[in-house]
């Protein structure tokens, strides 16, 4: 009898232990995977680069690094799906559980500064920048975007532009339309297209950020780069007359969109432009890769591009950056990776494949296509302004609420409610 109770007790203990140990092996499974001796010689790169071009770019970057540092092992910890939202959810859990990846993808701007830096989870990289002589290799406004209170916190690897309109050249030609540079010209062109039975502006706002992107570009056009920045720094309120004017213009633009916008994502809306049902699309320039690689259209023949009306000379910037989280075991190895990431060689290995342009100003132009070269030229001369829709201009908290306000505005078109919602969210910028 006693023996039996003892046996049962043992069984219970064994079960509990098994549950615990499988837990802990799951934890360390990430870092040992075979030889636990090499702990400290492993760099885990956390990103959401799993799509066609971007994954190729990341793998090219990893190859380059392994060539230079065969002794350091790289682990590609990419999380797929949701344009990064799944990855961000995983990242938040890991960071709060004090289990940070060695380095992770984060958009430069408030997603970094008001997120992980404000949470005191990042190491400053000022000395690292000085050591590598990078201070004048990246544009000053870009370094500002990855800095908080004078400290630099991450290394930008690529640049995308948000204030671009892609258009179907054939549709423009058939209707005798010139590229519009002001809002008035834009609306005149849109009227003409509408009369001809073409949807002037394609939108796929199944996810609200695509509409938010249009709104931020209208804001940029109306306010200009300086006041646009001030707006998101809280120096200009959302009750400013010009913000209201921008909201009205945004609403007017929405009069020209396709009716089924809520059922489309951005790729679906790009297809409308590709097949000539719609004329124009405002999208970050990753759409260029979609047009030329996926839809096999020819740049400057089938589709063209121009700056969003009234934003010539400004560059709405979306940049992927990598930083150094606090509390990792081998910061020196991670710095080696960041060094490759920030080098001309690294950036030129990554960006042509991803279809972005390098963050450095001294990269090799010949490696980029026509659009890339032109954009690199603009990037050097233009004013760089952070994008709201991609988490650079304001915190994720504000962005979530702004997206909600935009979603409601697209249907209701109530300027006052819209402005009020933005104003209410403003303290969370």
């Amino acid at each position: 009898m006693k023996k039996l109770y003892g046996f049962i007790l043992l069984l219970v203990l064994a079960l509990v232990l098994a549950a615990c140990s499988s837990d802990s092996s799951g934890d360390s499974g990430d870092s040992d995977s075979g030889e636990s001796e090499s702990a400290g010689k492993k760099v885990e790169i956390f990103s959401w680069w799993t799509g066609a071009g971007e994954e190729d770019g990341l793998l090219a970057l990893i190859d380059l690094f392994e060539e230079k540092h065969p002794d350091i092992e790289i682990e590609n910890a990419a999380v797929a799906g949701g344009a990064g939202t799944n990855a961000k959810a995983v990242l938040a859990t890991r960071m709060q559980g004090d289990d940070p990846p060695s380095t992770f993808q984060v958009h430069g701007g408030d997603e970094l500064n008001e997120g992980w830096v404000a949470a005191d989870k990042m190491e400053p990289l000022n000395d690292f920048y000085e050591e590598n002589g990078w201070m004048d290799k990246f544009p000053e406004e870009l370094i500002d975007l990855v800095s908080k209170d004078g400290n630099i916190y991450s290394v930008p690897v690529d640049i995308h532009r948000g204030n671009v309109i892609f258009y179907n050249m054939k549709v423009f030609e058939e209707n005798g339309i010139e590229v519009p540079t002001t809002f008035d010209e834009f609306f005149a062109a849109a009227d003409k297209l509408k009369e001809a039975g073409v949807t002037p502006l394609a939108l796929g706002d199944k996810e609200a950020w695509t509409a938010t992107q249009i709104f931020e570009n209208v804001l940029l056009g109306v306010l200009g780069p300086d006041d646009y920045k001030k707006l998101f720094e809280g120096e200009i309120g959302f009750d400013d007359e010009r913000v209201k004017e921008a909201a009205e213009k945004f609403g007017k633009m929405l009069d020209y969109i396709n009716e089924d916008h809520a059922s489309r994502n951005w790729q679906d809306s790009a297809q409308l432009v590709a097949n000539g049902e719609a004329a124009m699309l405002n999208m970050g320039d990753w759409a260029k890769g979609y047009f030329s690689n996926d839809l096999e259209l020819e740049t400057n023949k089938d589709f063209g591009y121009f700056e969003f009306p009234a934003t010539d000379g400004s560059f709405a910037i979306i940049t992927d950056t990598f930083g150094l989280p606090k509390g990792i075991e081998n910061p020196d190895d991670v710095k080696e990776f960041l060094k490759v990431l920030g080098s001309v060689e690294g950036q030129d290995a990554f960006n042509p494949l991803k279809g972005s342009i390098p963050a450095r100003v001294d990269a090799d132009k010949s490696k980029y296509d026509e659009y890339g070269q032109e954009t690199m030229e603009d990037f050097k001369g233009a004013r760089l302004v952070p994008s709201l829709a991609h988490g650079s201009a304001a915190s994720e908290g504000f962005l979530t609420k702004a997206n909600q306000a935009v979603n409601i505005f697209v249907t209701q078109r109530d300027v006052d409610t819209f402005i009020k919602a933005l104003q209410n969210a403003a303290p969370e910028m």
Partner: protein
Amino acid sequence: MAENIQTKHKKRFTKDQWTAVAFLIPSIILILVFVYGFIGWTGYVSLSNWNTLVPDFSFAGLKNYIYLFNDFRFQADLRNTLFFTILFIGLVIVMGMGLAILIDQKLKGESIFRNIFLFPMALSFIVTGVVWQWLLNPSTGFNQFLSVFGIEPKWYTDTNILAGFEWGSIEFGLPVAIIAVVIAAVWQMTGFSLAMYLAGLRGIPDELREAARMDGASEFQVYRKVVLPMLLPITMSVVIIMAHISLKIFDLIYAMTGSGANFVTDVPGVYMFETTFRGNYYANGAAIAIIMLLLVAVFIVPYLWNSRKGDN
């Protein structure tokens, strides 16, 4: 055994019962910690100020709840959930029961029919969502066919609210777009209620129906007066199971429509995910989770109470 009966009022466990308890303890501990413990934790977070990436557990009272009930999106979510639940449960019951009665007519090839209707249940809501997103897309899918007759419903992109009136900050009424989602959900879950009703019908002895017929009841009366009342327990179970699916629905909406223009197809589950993991509003997200739990409890608790009484 004999010894046990004699000392019944002492209620000592037998050896077998001890073994069973020993095997239950680990899972009870795990459930206590990982289910009830975390429900408690979520409740605690929902009363805190943790609405950024930096955890802040200072007491906020009901601030997060008050915010939600004043929020346009959350009010829309509650409206959508209400109408989705009513339509979804109603249609699943009516169609499941109707199909079960038809199949129960001793048809030839009955199992083929049964399997055809059961099959959608084998799919995940994500698959259903993606497929119906295409079928009910206003510019592809069914509309290609319907446009021949000049009808082009806007399905889930329709932003109209039927019989709407101002209520709080939203327009209260039936969102047309939610009907498209209901169609997809009903398509998937009808097979389940059909299977349950079929089992229920098989449990009704033929003698009862025969007796009713002998007494001169018409076939309609047989169903109305004999079969339906006997299916009541099945209906209760179907309502409970469907209610907890519809109140917590996330995957179908997420894959099929997203939040929808003007939040016409948004539900608390989607809002909870977005506000927590995109906006970092952890306390708000926790508050939504607690409200969802309470909504489900409204259905589940009376059911558990009832079945507990049945045990005694």
